[in-house]
């Protein structure tokens, strides 16, 4: 039981460790951060050992090698966040609390991925949401931060209500909340479809699928960059994982319905996300809409409904973590020193900060799906998985959306590399851990695609 729940236990241990350290009040921010980074690194490394598959608590909790892998990917993301946002953390008064909340949310995500019934699912979902809402408010002095937190907590409460209503209907119609028993009771009656739509909407809310995405940009913009990146990368990844397994396993009998639903929402998400991203100035907002569009692509992969769909989504999330975190890392480096977070402020960045520029370029190319970055492979496999159902219209739309997305990614590239600026941002000092984080991300962006064994490993 210890090894089965190893990931959760480790994270819980870290949370309590931090709690005690915090209460002890004996540590400076820098050393505290270093401690956290080391702990998270160990946590990540530990993820590769002593893995046991198994089911606990009467099916409420399950662990398979795929789930462990997914958790490890999330661990990696959290570790990278601890590296990349070091300058913000160092300045922050409540850094340990931030990590406690983040790790609680991470714990929630672990339980989410491992959940074996709707109750666990719901609780884990809340555990992974409510702390994040608090995290969104961590720039305590900023109006936008509290506005973001308010928007997040209210909309997520609303979506919880919808989700719960859906769950209650499912419970009423089937008499069970266990994932393993549900498929035998689901037969696609209208009420079940209705309940499924309610449930789906909650997933869609978390994943920012159109039209449930509206909170995303505002929250991303207002929240501290670390929260934003956690929200856009880790929590999206976790929800995507559970979304897939829910659709594939639990709602397998209703595949016809959810396939179509995924398809139309995917198209809408890609289009809307891209169209909004086109005209954004704020980098965080820009990345928010771009991540909405990315979710559209993830849905393409999900629509496949087969093993390839799962592995390609996991693979994509891994790549997405590297790419998006790299982009956020660069953005935060600029923002924390200069306070600028607009795309136009990046004009002429290459003149003063070639390293940041290249990392940003790599990240954006990866997001746009340009080879040889890993994003190319990720997107291509998603599309391939999606194409396996034979719906070429859908794939064509997705492929054409890649062009629109390329346009706005290139807009940033243009600002960084081409546009002339009389006063480009000054040379930015990046501390060691952020540099390390960016390097890891860049290496990940390049290598995850080219080294095909990583994909095989995921499979």
């Amino acid at each position, binding site marked *: 039981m210890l090894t089965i729940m190893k990931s959760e236990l480790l994270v819980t241990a870290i949370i309590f460790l931090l709690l005690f350290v915090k209460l002890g009040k004996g540590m400076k921010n820098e050393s505290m951060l270093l401690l956290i980074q080391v702990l998270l690194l160990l946590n990540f490394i530990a993820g590769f050992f002593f893995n046991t598959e198994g089911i606990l608590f009467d099916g409420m909790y399950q662990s398979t090698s795929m789930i462990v892998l997914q958790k490890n990917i999330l661990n990696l993301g959290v570790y990278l966040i601890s590296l990349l946002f070091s300058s913000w953390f160092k300045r922050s008064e409540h850094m340990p609390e931030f990590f406690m909340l983040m790790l609680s949310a991470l714990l929630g995500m672990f339980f989410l991925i491992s959940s074996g019934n709707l109750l666990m699912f*719901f*609780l884990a979902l809340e555990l992974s949401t409510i702390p994040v809402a608090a995290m969104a408010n961590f720039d305590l002095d900023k109006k936008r931060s*509290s506005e973001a937190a*308010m928007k997040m*907590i209210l909309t997520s409460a609303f979506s919880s209500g919808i989700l719960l209503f859906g769950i209650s209907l499912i419970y009423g119609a089937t008499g069970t909340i266990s994932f393993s028993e549900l498929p035998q009771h689901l037969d696609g009656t209208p009420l079940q479809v209705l309940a499924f739509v309610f449930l789906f909407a909650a997933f869609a809310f978390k994943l920012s699928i159109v039209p449930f995405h509206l909170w995303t940009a505002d929250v991303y913009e207002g929240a501290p960059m670390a929260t934003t990146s956690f929200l856009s990368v880790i929590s999206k990844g976790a929800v995507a994982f559970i979304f897939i397994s829910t659709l594939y396993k639990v709602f397998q009998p209703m595949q016809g319905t959810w396939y179509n639903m995924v398809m139309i929402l995917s198209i809408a998400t890609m289009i809307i996300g891209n169209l909004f991203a086109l005209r954004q100035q704020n980098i965080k907002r820009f990345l928010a809409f771009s991540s909405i569009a990315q979710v559209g692509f993830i849905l393409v992969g999900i629509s496949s409904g087969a093993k390839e769909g799962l592995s390609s989504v996991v693979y994509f999330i891994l790549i997405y973590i590297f790419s998006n975190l790299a982009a956020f890392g660069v953005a935060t480096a600029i923002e924390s020193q200069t306070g600028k977070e607009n795309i136009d402020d990046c004009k002429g960045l290459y003149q003063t900060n070639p390293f940041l520029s290249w990392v940003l370029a790599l990240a954006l190319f990866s997001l746009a799906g340009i080879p040889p970055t890993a994003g190319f492979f990720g997107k291509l496999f998603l599309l391939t998985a999606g194409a396996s159902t034979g719906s070429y219209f859908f794939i064509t739309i997705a492929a054409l959306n890649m062009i629109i997305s390329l346009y706005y990614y290139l807009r940033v590239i243009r600002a960084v590399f081409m546009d002339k600026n009389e006063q480009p941002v000054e040379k930015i000092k990046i501390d060691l851990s952020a540099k390390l984080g960016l390097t890891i991300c860049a290496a990940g962006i390049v290598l995850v695609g080219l080294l095909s064994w990583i994909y095989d490993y995921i499979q």
Partner: protein
Amino acid sequence: MIEPGLYHLLFISAALFFIGVYGFFTRRNLVTMLMSVELILNSVNLNFIAFNKYLWPNKLDGVFFTIFIIAIAAAEAAVAIAIIINLYRSHHSIDVENAEEMKF
């Protein structure tokens, strides 16, 4: 008057749910919006209990769901209120329409 049964309870719950939804849509005060959310959650609870009683009394899934929802609702409300208070400090208002600086 008909003997009350499952459908009555379901109606109450659904009506309460949409009353909450209506409140969420129309209330401009953040605290009242939070109250609407509480109504929504309560309606769900009612649903669970009703289903548990009338259809699936063989297990206590609905009951437990309800208990946990109440717990979650408390946590959520606490965090929400903390956030609202913080918002009030910075905006000097808890009118939702005063907090829409970020848009488009």
